[in-house]
C-alpha cells in the first residue's frame, strides 16, 4: 500500500491505496465521485478525462500514486455552487449530449481547449476534442456547445 494525498475539487484527500490503483478508480470508488467514467482501457475514448493541475488528463491512464501532491478537478467540481460552468450551459443549450456517458470527459477536455484557445475556430474545436469519443451526437452539437461557451465567456 502507498499513501497518496490529492486535492480533489478543492478538498485534500489522503488514502492508503494499492500502487496499481488507477486514478479513475480512486476518484470513483474511494471518493465516490462517479461522474468520471470509464469507456475503454486503452486511453482512446476520453470518458475519464479530468483536470490534473489544470491540464486535461485521462485518469484511466494514471495511477493514483502518480497524482500524489497534485490538484484534480472532476466534473463534480466544475460548477460554481448552483451556477453552471459556461461549458455545462453550452452542452445543455445546444443539445451537446444524448446518453451523457462521454459528456463529463468531453466537457473537461473542452475546458482545457478553451483555456488554451478562448476563441477557437470550428476546426480547432474538432481538433481539440479529437481525443474524446462520442457515439451518440455526431459531434456537431458538441461543437455548437463549445462555441456557445466560448461566446459567453468572451462576452464576459
Amino acid at each position: 500500500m502507498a499513501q497518496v494525498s490529492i486535492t480533489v475539487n478543492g478538498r485534500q484527500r489522503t488514502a492508503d491505496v494499492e500502487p496499481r490503483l488507477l486514478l479513475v478508480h480512486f476518484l470513483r470508488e474511494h471518493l465516490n465521485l462517479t461522474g468520471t467514467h470509464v469507456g475503454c482501457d486503452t486511453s482512446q475514448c476520453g470518458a475519464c478525462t479530468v483536470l490534473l493541475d489544470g491540464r486535461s488528463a485521462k485518469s484511466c491512464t494514471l495511477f493514483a500514486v502518480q497524482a500524489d501532491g497534485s490538484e484534480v478537478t472532476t466534473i463534480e467540481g466544475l460548477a460554481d455552487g448552483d451556477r453552471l460552468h459556461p461549458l455545462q450551459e453550452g452542452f445543455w443549450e445546444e443539445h451537446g449530449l444524448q446518453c451523457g456517458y462521454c459528456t463529463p470527459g468531453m466537457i473537461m477536455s473542452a475546458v482545457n481547449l478553451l483555456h488554451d484557445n478562448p476563441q477557437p475556430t470550428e476546426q480547432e474545436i474538432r481538433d481539440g476534442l479529437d481525443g474524446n469519443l462520442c457515439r451518440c451526437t455526431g459531434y456537431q452539437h458538441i461543437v455548437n456547445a463549445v462555441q456557445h461557451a466560448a461566446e459567453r465567456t468572451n462576452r464576459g
Partner: protein
Amino acid sequence: MTAPAVLPKLVGQRVRRREDPRLIQGRGTYVDDVTIAGLQHLAFKRSDIPHGRILSIDTSAAEALDGVEAIFTGAQIAEFLGPMPVPTPFPAPEHRAVAADVVRYVGDPVAVVVARDRYLARDAADAITVDCEPLPAVVDPEAALSGQPAVLHADFPNNVAVGPLPAGTGVGRGGQVDDSAVDGAFAEAEVVVSQRMVNQRLAPTAIEPRGVVAHFEPGKETLTIWSSTQNPHILRTHVAALTGLGQDQVRAIAPEVGGGFGAKINIYGEDLVAAAVSKRLGLPVKWVEDRSEAFLATIHGRGIIGYVDIAARRDGRVLGLKLRLVADIGAYNMLLTAVVPTQTMRMANGTYAFPVVRATLTEVFTNKTPTDAYRGAGRPEAAYFVERAMDMLAREIGMDPAELRRRNFIQPHQFPYKTQVGALYDSGDYEKALDRALEKAGWEQLKAERDAARADGRLVGLGLSMYVEICGLGPSARLPNGGWEYSQVTVERDGRISATTGVSPHGQGNETTFAQMLADQFGVPLEHIRIHHGDTAVVKQGIGTFGSRSQAVGGAALHLAGGKVKTKMAKFAAALLEAHEGDLVFENGRIAVAGAPAAGKTFAEVAAYAHRPVKLPAGLEPGLSEEAFFEPPNNTYPFGCHIALLEVDRDTGEPRLLRMVAVDDAGNLINPLIVEGQIHGGLTQGIGQALVEEVVYGDDGQPLTGSLMDYAIPRATDFPRFELDNTVTPTPVNPLGAKGVGEAGTIGSTPCIVSAAVDALGGFGVRHIDMLLRPEKLWRIIHGGNA
C-alpha cells in the same frame, strides 16, 4: 414580464432536455455507479481460441487468492442455470451462458470468478488455466456452407442456421418457389447489373460498456437486477424464467444507460450468470465489461454478403431485382440474431416499384462473436445493397443517379404499398424527399463543381442514396415478447402529473419529449410533469426501446393514457363547476368552461376533489390514474434521401467527406432539436461503416480488432457540418402521425458515401468498392494495384 395568456404549445418546439442538468454535472447514476454493502465483483475467464473442446480447467491457483469468494466453471454453472433462451421462431442450438464442453468463439466464457474487488477478480480469472483441444475454426461464411473446415453444431449440417429462405415474386405460402416471372424479367432486360457486396461486421461500441448488478435478498426472496439494458421488462422476463423466480419476485432497473445502439437489447449470459450467482450465494454481485472484453462479448452488427442483380431497360426502367444473402451470424443465436437478416430481405424493394423481386437468405454459423441488432438492424444492409446496385445501373446506362431513382419510385397514390417481400409501406412521398435533397445540396451546381475539380486533377465524387426503413416495432406478431407499449398517466393530488412509460430511453430524451406531449395535452407547464422509466417496480409493464419505437409506439401509449385521464378529470371538473364536460377547456393549468376562464378550477383543486370525492359523481371511481397499452397495427416506414460529396487524396488514398446533406421524413416531429441529434448520430455511424469501422478476424478465427486502438469509431475531425432538412409525411398507423427517427441516419448514409467514392474513382474503371474505404484500398485503385 407578465405570463402569456395561454401557455405556448410545446410539441414541435426545440425544447432543451430535462435529462441534461444531472448528466452535465456528473450526477447521473450508471450501472457501475451502483453500490451495495457486501458487493462482490465478477470476472469471466474467456476462451482465447476460436473453437475447441474443453479438456480441463484448473482453478486452484485462483481459489488460493485471498478475497476470492467462489469460482464456477461452465459445468458447475450448468447445475443451476439453464441454457440461454432464444425466443425467435427459428431453430437454435443450445447456448450456455458459460461454455461447459466446447468453446465456439474467442471470448466464449468458460468460468466465472466472484471476488472482493474488481482488481482481485481479474487477477483470479487470469490465474485460471484452461486446457483445450483445438478444433478447426470456421471463419469464411461461404466456405462454411460446405461444412468446411468444421461443423459448429451437430444438429446444423453445413453450418446452416437458417435457410435458404426464399421471399418475393412466385414464392408460395408454403415456401414453394416459381421462378418463371423473375427469370422472364431478366430475359427481357436490356441491361443487367450484378455485384457481390460485403456489408462488413461492426462493433456497436456504446461508450458505456455493458454492466450488471444483481442482488438477491434471502428471506425476502426477491432479486433486483440493475443492467445497462434497453429493455428492463424483457430482462425481467428472462431472468425470472432462468432463476426459477416469479416475475413478481424480480425487479429490473435500467439506470442511466450510456448508449445502446441495439447491442443492449440482448439478454446476455453475464446478466443471467450474475442473477444466478447472486441467488446461489445470497450476495450482491457486480460485473462491468472492459472495452477489450466488449469487442468479444457484446454482439456484433451487420456481417452479411449480398449478391445483387438488377434487370432494367436502357431508359432506366427497372424490371426486376434478385438479392441473395449470406449472413455470417457467428457462433450462436442470441435474442434476435436470426431475425435481423430477415429484415434485410424484407426491405429488398427499397423505394422502388420493382415489378418482380426474388430474395433468398441463408444464415451461417461461424466461430465468431454472435451478431444481432445494431442500429438499423437489417435495414442498412438492404439499403446498401439496393442503392449501390441502383448506382451501378445509373453508371452503366449513363443516367443521372437522381433521375434513375425518380423513374422508379413507388408513387404517393400507391400507399399503403404491399411489396413482393411482404412489407406493407404505410405512407410515403419519395420524390418530394429527393427533390428537397437535390435543392438543399444544389445538385446541378454540385455536379459542375465536381467536374471542375476533376478538370483540376482532383478526385472528387458525388453520391446519392434513397432509403426507406422499418420503425415503430411491433406489432406483437413480429416480436417474441410482444410489440405493444405501455404507459400510465397520473394527475397527483397536488395537480402535478406523473407518467410512466415502458420504453427505456438511453439518450433519446423521452423525459423531455413525452413531457412536451403531456404539457400540450393537459395545458400545464412542462415543469409540472415528470416522466418515469426504466424500473419494472415503477413502470408496471413495458417492452423497451429499440427499432425506433419510442415515439411511434411508446408515445402513442402515453397519448392514449393521457387521454383517458383527461376524460376522467373533465368529469370531476364538470361536477365541481356544475358544467357539461364537453364545454370544458384545459388551459394554463386550469379547467374552465370555454369563454369563462376566471370561473374555472385549478388542476390542484380538481385533483384534490378527485382524491377526496365527498360527493362522488355517479359512475366514477376516485383518483386520476389511467393506463394504456398501444398495439400498433403496422410498422411505420420513414424514408429520405442523402447526398455526399467526397474527395480522395490522390497521393495517400485518404477519403475526405466534404459535404453531407440529409433529408429525412419521420412523419410528425415532437422536438426537432432532439430529432436533429438522432440524425447526426445516425449519420456518424453510417458514415463510420463506410470510412473507418470494421471488425476483422484472421483466417485462424482470431479477432484482430480487440480494442479501440484497432477498431476505429469516428472522431470529431472526420466530419464536415451536416446539412439537414426534412419533409413531413405523417403515418396513419398511430394517433401521433410520428414515424420514428433513431436509425434513419445510419441507413441512408452508408451507400451514398461508397457511391461518392466510386464516382470519385470512376476514371480508374472501378464499378464497386467493398467497405471499408481504407486509404490503402483506394490508393491501389488509383495507382493500379489490386483493390
